[in-house]
């Protein structure tokens, strides 16, 4: 039994403690925005925030997140609504499948670094594969989000 908060809602997850968080979120909790891509932490499609940090949920067992605060794509508006809106405005997604992971990695980057350079973006986003090839727009969207957020705080 793991007690977790997902998107500000409390859950008691009664599954095999070895079950990866990805499958617990999808099959037990029923939130399907978090995606399976590789099962080996190679593609980033399953990225969620655990206590604010980006984590590959396909490699993270339920037992290790007991007591944690988890944010999935369904709760991303609580974390960074600006980024979500910029993502729509630039129309980043193509098929959309990897975008949950891309968005959560980007949210985590902007938490740590309010003015990321291209190199910073490469560093933070290199674990997230997009087969459709939306990288160009992802980069643009992160820069634009940073600019809007900075203009608001200045």
């Amino acid at each position, binding site marked *: 039994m793991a007690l977790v908060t997902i998107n500000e809602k409390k859950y008691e997850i009664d599954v095999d403690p070895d079950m990866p968080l990805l499958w617990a979120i999808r099959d037990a909790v029923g939130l399907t925005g978090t995606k399976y891509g590789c099962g080996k932490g190679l593609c980033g499609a399953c990225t969620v925030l655990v206590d604010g940090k980006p984590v590959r949920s396909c490699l993270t067992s339920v037992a290790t997140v007991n007591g944690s605060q988890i944010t999935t794509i369904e709760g991303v508006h609580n974390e960074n609504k600006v980024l979500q809106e910029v993502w729509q405005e630039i129309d980043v997604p193509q*098929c959309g499948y990897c975008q*949950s992971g891309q968005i959560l990695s980007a949210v985590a980057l902007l938490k740590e670094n309010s003015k990321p350079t291209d190199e910073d973006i490469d560093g933070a986003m290199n674990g997230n594969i997009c087969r459709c090839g939306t990288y160009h727009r992802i980069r643009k969207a992160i820069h634009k989000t940073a600019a809007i957020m900075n203009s608001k705080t200045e």
Partner: protein
Amino acid sequence: MHKIQLVTRRNFIKSIGLASGGLIIACSIPASKEEETKLKSFNGTTFEPNLFIQLKDNGELILLASRSEMGNGVRTSLTSVIADEMDADWSLVSVKQATGDTKFMDQNTDGSRSIRYLFEPMRVMGATARAMLISGAAAKWGVDASTLTTAKHYVIDPETNKKLFYGDLVKEASEVPVPENPTLKEAKDFNYIGTNLKSIDGKDFTSGKPKYGMDIKMEGMLFAAVARCPVTFGTVKNYDKSATLKIDGVKDVIELPRVAKPFGPLGGVVVIATNTWAAFKGKEALNVEWDYGTNEQYTSASYNEMILENVKKKGKEVRSDGNVNSAFKNAEHIVESTYQLPHLVHAPMEVPNATAWVHDGKCDVWAPVQDPQTTRSEVVSYLETNEENVTINVTFLGGGFGRKSKPDFVLEAVAISKKVNAPIQVVWTREDDIQHSYYHAVSAQYMKGALDKDGRVTGWLHRVAYPSITSTFAPDTGYGAGFEFSQGLSNMPYQIENVRCENAKAPAHVRIGWLRSVYNIIQGFSVNVFVDELAAKTKKDPLQFRLDMLSKDVVIEDPSGYHFESSKLKNVLSLAAKNANYGKDLPQGHGLGIACHYSFFSYVASVVEVSVIDNALKVHNIHSVIDCGTAVNTNTITAQMEGAAIFGLSLAYYGKITAKGGVIEQSNFHDYQMLRISNAPNINVEIVKSNSKPTGVGEPGVPVIAPALINAIYNATGKRYRSLPLTDEGLV
């Protein structure tokens, strides 16, 4: 109303419907189908002039997307065409996804032809609704319909300035006859067509809402993972399921026989569980003894040598103009090269998966399929039932690239559901996806060119060997088919007097299928690299060399009605060069490379800028130009061209599937790598303004990228690479 359907030269190709050459467009529609697209009875609140349009009395407009959404933006582009002709307010539009049904015209989302096939029919759908709304308003006002006009969800009487909201006309519009030939707009009056319209699903995409195949959940549903033989078409000898059955959540282990059809399940041992993870774990714990069968002989290293030998010998004639032998005899210079490209796999981010429930004589499917009609007919055939008993619900597709037009994974779910009598969700692991696909063909090519003393190309010999897609559908002859040759071999664009194209033998040992751009990847590569090699031999600039070989403005007619115009290819070449500032001074170690290709009836040229410093390759910029006729959605076209550039770089950098003893050696993203953001260049896209009929967008951007990259590396380093991927060369 016309139905546009495919008529192919060879019947067995019909079901796979490849887009390129060899296909003829015919217009016909059976009477019964025509009835179905016409007026349905009025239910009191909704106007439904045809199957694609539902207008509610509150003004809400629900438009049907008949093609699959896999990143191609088709839910937005197709429906925007209807909305435009209808003069609808886009903010009141929502999109409903069609199930697989022949009444929706051809739904095969493949071959870069959704817009090409459906642009005119969707215009007619919208124009029909608009004409009926006008007639309804005319009846209400008691005026002549021809005096009325429309704008943004209103019928307007310009005389009186009176307006009627579309939603307030649902009853009246439903009572007028369906017009036979509604007037279509002139291009200058388009509101949405030709604009930069964002995806109608953008909000959902950024909040985790769209339902992809695996996101379907239902009461009593069980999850299945399938252990398939590591060698294509091998079979189960026996298996030990005891360790699997001990895993918490595993319910059962059953055997699934192969169905020996093009899209039949491969068969294997199935683990049924209460969640995906237990099914995956249970599969890993199985101990299966396989009979590998004849494909165990397939080892890429020796096979690739064999097909390379085959292209060095005379092959079957595909095209012959003039006399290449005398051209070679009289040549000032001869250039010869061989090119080798490996198998590729689609690897969409969403693995193959399907949910099926066979119950009470019916079968309901939810799956990410590119071709829901073929999926339906395959399920009907498997269950030996009738079409009306089978419903194919099309989910969002997490990428397709051709993989998801082969519904073998759906048939697995159907077969298992039937056997266990419960709703079943089959999910492939990434390893399953990489190791049991329908692979893009491995290839070897030989090219020989003759140059005269002025550096003009007088002879061109191009010999190809690759396993054919037809081997998946019919007994393998070892030779290719016309629709494969017409993807850049037999229709290479240059004006040369003596041309000979030949096909050498290459049998198939895995399932061969189509992958984004198909054989254009192979032939677009060799032709573009070889042209650069010829240019280098003559010390001419590769751009000018190409333009010289396209000097005459010729039109090569095609039975499809889409004719090749050499001037359009020249135009995209010149524009790409201009946008890239081709000829500019470059820093040491930098180089520009150019390539052009005509595929899916569209013209594309790209210029790639690289640097190679200390043997490390970096792609800085890509400038791509496309002429795809009428541009329906410039945002989508730009996105597809951006994505095509990344797809092309991915295959050039890393793409390689190999077999050893019949077993695919790659298994996941660590050894079948994808380009990542740190290697993604700046990409600039220009769309040529055109009033021609719309042509392909999803695929034509891919074939130019790898050869332009190779040519750029040559210009940066003086070294010519003739095989891919570059990771084998230590450059990436």
